[in-house]
């Protein structure tokens, strides 16, 4: 028997007894970031594939949601910082070994590209407002100019969207200290999930039936890919070393089993897939609206599980000889 304990009371907040430095703020950001990536991706993709007739909202109106969603996400990201006054320090340097540094700059790059997307499709996407500014010659000239470069802007947007969608997964997977995250599959998983939520949201908002059908088909395909990646992830964990096996155990029999299988896999992936299949076959519309909502829910739950479970997996875990809550008496 090995008894390995801390014999001096250690109670560093958010680290003992289990690491929880990242909470809902990060899960929400990861979800919204993935969603924004999906939004930017599909608004650019639909434009490049000339789907103006089939998917008019995606081509012309969707792009505006990108910066809105991302800004919401960046707000929670900001809330997570414990040294908020120094947030500007992200932007006084670029650290090539830190995925978070890449992410900080990608987040910044997102905005100009998204704005250009919006401007380049403004007249077609928001005619009500476009008509209002028709009599301002400067604005008209600007809109004309940017519209000419619609396709170029869309080509720029694709890699930015992919970068935004994948970097958070790469960031988490770069943490060798957190065995659950430390897999190359996490980046692709987050990207596919982000794109899936983007497609789902668009399907939810779009009015035109052909657009909804198109995006639902795309989303179904993405869900299948996502299921494959999840399967690979589970295989990877179950055939890994002890830290990975411990993480796998938490998903299969442990405290995360219900959330993972019941909510994420069943409600977030399988049920929408089935519903979308029926949608493609042309079945009852109302029930089918449930599918995108469940996809969005599943997207958030995936992030939440990843963030929480990852922090619980560790190389070193000491029990404490003492009840560290006693230290609260110091206050």
């Amino acid at each position, binding site marked *: 028997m090995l008894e390995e304990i801390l*014999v001096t009371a250690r109670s560093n907040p*958010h680290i003992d007894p289990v690491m929880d*430095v990242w909470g809902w703020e990060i899960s929400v950001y990861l979800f919204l970031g993935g969603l924004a990536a999906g939004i930017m991706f599909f608004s650019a993709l639909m434009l490049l594939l000339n789907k103006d007739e089939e998917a008019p909202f995606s081509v012309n109106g969707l792009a505006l949601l990108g910066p809105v969603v991302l800004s919401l996400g960046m707000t929670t990201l900001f809330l997570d910082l414990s040294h908020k006054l120094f947030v500007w320090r992200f932007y006084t340097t670029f650290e090539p070994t830190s995925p978070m540094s890449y992410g900080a700059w990608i987040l910044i790059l997102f905005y100009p590209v998204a704005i250009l997307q919006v401007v380049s499709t403004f007249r077609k996407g928001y005619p009500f407002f476009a008509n209002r500014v028709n009599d301002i010659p400067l604005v008209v000239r600007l809109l004309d100019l940017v519209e000419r470069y619609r396709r170029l802007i869309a080509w720029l947007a694709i890699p930015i969207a992919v970068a935004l969608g994948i970097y958070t997964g790469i960031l988490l997977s770069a943490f060798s200290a957190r065995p659950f995250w430390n897999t190359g599959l996490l980046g692709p998983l987050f990207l596919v999930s982000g794109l899936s939520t983007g497609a789902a949201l668009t399907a939810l908002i779009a009015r035109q039936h052909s657009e909804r059908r198109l995006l639902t088909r795309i989303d179904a395909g993405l869900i299948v890919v996502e299921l494959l990646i999840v399967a690979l992830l589970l295989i990877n964990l179950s055939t890994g070393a002890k830290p990975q096996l411990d993480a796998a155990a938490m998903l299969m029999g442990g405290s995360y089993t219900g959330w993972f299988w019941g909510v994420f896999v069943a409600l977030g992936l399988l049920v929408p897939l089935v519903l979308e299949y029926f949608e493609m076959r042309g079945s009852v519309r109302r029930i089918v609206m449930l599918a995108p909502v469940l996809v969005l829910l599943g997207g958030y739950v995936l992030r939440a599980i990843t963030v929480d479970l990852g922090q619980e997996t560790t190389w070193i875990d000491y029990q404490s000889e003492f009840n560290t809550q006693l230290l609260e008496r110091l206050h």
Partner: protein
Amino acid sequence: MALYAMVIDTKLCIGCGDCVVACKTENKVPEGLNRDWVVEATQGTYPNLKTEFRSERCNHCSHATCVYMCPTGASHHWNGTNIVLVDPNKCTGCKACIAACPYDARLIMHPGGYIDKCTFCHHRVEKGLDPACVSTCPTHCMYFGLLDDPSSTVSELLRTRNYKVLSPETGNQPNVYYLI
């Protein structure tokens, strides 16, 4: 990179925690927070037993994942050595370094909000003194010095005694050695 190492003789360590209190007072660590701690590991069944005490802290790894993951450069290696420090003026409190450390060696400095950890008392090292924990240990079981210097005590100890580091499989190349 000049390598500063701490070498701790587990055969003499009694797990008294003097190192923990010395660090707290020297570095004015806020109440309830710890830069170092003591672990007791007992193996066997009564009466065939073996107990080992370890004073643990940041390992100032040569391959410090916390430095790699820091997005602002706040976590950095000091002065071309392996001593990892956090610049509070660059730290945003994103906590990536905390997630990156396999040894749970970092902490959030309340109320400042920036990230803090053992600094190998570099403010003493640059004056030619040992870290506070090493200087106070009543069994004199802690040593500190430059591994690059073959005549330093730490180099000699690692040459002549069996030793181990914590979880070498993390790949971080920790620089706190335990003589066994």
